């Protein structure tokens, strides 16, 4: 079968681009001390950070779904003045440096923040330095991914399926749960996975808003950063673990998240 040759103008930059991503991964694999891998991975601080990371990132994804799907639905289905501005605001964390996000969270939900001060004076609840704070920071940076993906899915689905369901007597809630959600399931899944992956890797907003304490707020990325100063090789191994988790996720998704 005749195959068309790829022009050299395309191959060379593409190869460089690929190398740009492959080399760091290779670097981590080569420099990681595989003999000490097990010790590093099973050290109590590591396990604690891993457990906290999984708990926080899954919670952030859950919050993202509960709050993000309705937002995505509004963006895709409802026209109202200021919609574009609102959408831009809720996707801003995607382009904002995470530390900036952390500062913004402090100014809103910190002890002296707009809303946080009320929380503190009325209920004695403070969010910084708590695991809840970690979840908030992660949700802040990761939810936009979910919103965008789900919105795209809602826009691209054939809305006549919803009309067909209505003509068959389904209430609006039933249409949403039995027809709309299943039809956008691929986007929903892709959005949730992207949200989870982003939440798992979050660092800047977490350390600024939630602080750093083992077992409470020290997630894997924070642990790696600190290990870099005390036990470099252990930090390589943990970095590799984080990198591999993300890789598995993205390979698993393959092209699904591109065609929402």
């Amino acid at each position, binding site marked *: 079968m005749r195959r068309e040759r790829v022009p050299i103008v395309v191959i060379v930059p593409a190869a460089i681009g690929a190398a740009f991503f492959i080399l760091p991964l290779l670097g981590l694999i080569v420099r990681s001390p595989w003999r000490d891998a097990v010790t590093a991975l099973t050290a109590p601080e590591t396990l604690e950070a891993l457990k906290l990371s999984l708990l926080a990132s899954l919670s952030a994804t859950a919050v993202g779904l509960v709050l993000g799907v309705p937002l995505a639905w509004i963006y895709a289905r409802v026209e109202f003045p200021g919609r574009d501005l609102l959408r831009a605001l809720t996707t801003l964390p995607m382009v904002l440096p995470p530390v900036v996000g952390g500062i913004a969270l402090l100014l809103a939900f910190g002890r002296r923040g707009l809303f946080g001060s009320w929380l503190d004076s009325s209920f004695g609840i403070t969010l910084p*330095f708590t695991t809840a704070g970690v979840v908030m920071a992660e949700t802040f940076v990761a939810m936009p991914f979910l919103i965008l993906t789900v919105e795209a899915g809602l826009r691209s689905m054939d809305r006549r399926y919803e009309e067909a369901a209505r003509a068959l007597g389904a209430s609006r809630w039933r249409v949403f749960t039995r027809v709309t959600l299943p039809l956008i399931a691929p986007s929903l899944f892709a959005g949730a996975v992207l949200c989870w992956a982003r939440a798992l890797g979050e660092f800047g907003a977490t350390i600024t808003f939630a602080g*750093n304490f083992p077992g409470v707020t020290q997630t894997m990325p924070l642990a790696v950063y600190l290990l870099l*100063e005390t036990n470099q090789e252990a930090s390589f191994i943990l970095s590799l673990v984080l990198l591999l988790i993300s890789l598995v996720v993205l390979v698993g998704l393959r092209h699904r998240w591109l065609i929402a």
Partner: protein
Amino acid sequence: MRNRIWLLVAAVLLAACGSSGGNASTSPSSSLLSGYINVFAAASLTASFNSLGVAFHRASPGVGVNFNYAGTPTLVTQIEQGAPADVFASADTTNMDKLTADGFTSGSSRTFARNQLEIVVAPGNPKSITGLADLAKPGLIYITEGPTVPAGKYSLQALAMAGVKVTPKSLETSVSAVISKIELGEADAGIVYTTDITAAGPRVQGVPIPAASNVIATYPIVAVKGTRYPDVASAFIAYVLSSTGQSTLATFGFLPPS
């Protein structure tokens, strides 16, 4: 015409030599120094070293000094990973020893200052902290630096000596981070250096720690191996150790090396 230009050049050179020649405490060849150096200094040296840098440049206009401030362990990591540092000023001897043992230093390090700890609180001391024991008050949010940051290590020592048991709510990566959070009002108290409190001015307030429970931090400085401008590096170090440099450091609250 050409003769006149040469005369002008000679005059300028002589003038330059003459202006720096009278100051015996600066490096003898400072007026002819050129190049630029990157100084990696502990976060607690931010204000004082910025001031030293300005003065150093004024004395030797041909040199440029860039500063990189961070928690001391972070700086060590950066240098060991190949960051272009020419001078390293550490907030303790442990980190300096590590860098030396790993072979990244040139020449031996010299102690240039000492520091001591002080409790930092918001202006007005709203939680009425009087000493280390108050840090364990229920409901108080106490934060400190991580145990690998010199200030963090020392605060643990101080608390141990005073017999106070308190768990921090966060282990920040530098004294600057601790001060920021106190300033923002997110935390009630932290332990930093006296110099940090001086540098922060009216933004924070300090509560002194008595000498019996206080820890003295030793700050060594060294030239980094492989610096492109070893003359400039040693000139800067010499300036820090000079009487001018020392008096500048004293105004910021540092204790003399011995």
